[in-house]
């Protein structure tokens, strides 16, 4: 399982987050990721290394190209960390109970 704290810390850097967001549409090479970002290729490589260590990104070789892609398990771990399922479900339960006017006389 990915290290959630490392993943969140990795996404705390705005440039690194921009690199990660560019992988949402599919696997990309370093050069493609660097295009349009105000940083060098080597800086992008460095950010990808940190994202990889955090379990958010993995790399594959396609022919001579090295492509980076979002690691679904890492992303799912971060998402799960924020879910707070019971907290939000009970909030919805409260809203529904309080919307029921048939019980409005008590308490």
């Amino acid at each position, binding site marked *: *399982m990915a290290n959630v*704290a490392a993943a*969140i*810390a990795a996404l*705390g*850097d705005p440039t690194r987050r921009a690199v990660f967001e560019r992988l949402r549409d599919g696997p990309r090479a370093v050069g493609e990721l660097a295009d349009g970002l105000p940083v060098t290729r080597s800086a992008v490589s460095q950010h990808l290394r940190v994202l990889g260590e955090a379990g958010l990104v993995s790399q594959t070789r396609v022919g001579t190209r090295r492509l980076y892609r979002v690691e679904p398990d890492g992303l799912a*771990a971060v998402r*799960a*960390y*924020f*879910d*707070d*399922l*019971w*907290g*939000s*479900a*009970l*909030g*919805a*339960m*409260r*809203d*529904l*109970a*309080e919307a*029921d006017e048939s*019980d409005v006389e*008590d*308490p």
Partner: protein
Amino acid sequence: MTTVPVLAAVHVRRSPEAAFRTFTERIGDWWPLRTHGVYGEAAVGLDIVDGQLVERSAHGETSVWGEVVRWEPPHRFACTWHPGRAQDGVHTLIEVEFQPDEDGTRVELTHSGWEIYGDEAEQRRAPYQAPDAWNHVLGLFARAGSD
């Protein structure tokens, strides 16, 4: 090995009777069934029927999520919890207390028994509660920003 239960509480400006009814009779209306159900978008209901918590799909399928083990309206309610899993004895436990207070009811939920999942316990538990997640994240963000 024991694991820390998930605790959640909410204040409802209604009587314990009304809060208990909403919790149990209308669970399908407040539980996020589309995103956290067995049938996803095809889900049409979640109800307590004959002592079982049952999800129904638009195609007529049913899935039992748990069995009621305590039914003491309007004070407390408890059921086993195993959404998406057969009744094979591997389940956690939901206990809900409805306590009257000065202007309504305090509803306290305890979700325990995660140790049954062994090494996966923490992974299973995580989505149900994010204790202090935001403070933790803000600390990490602050640290990242000061690098």
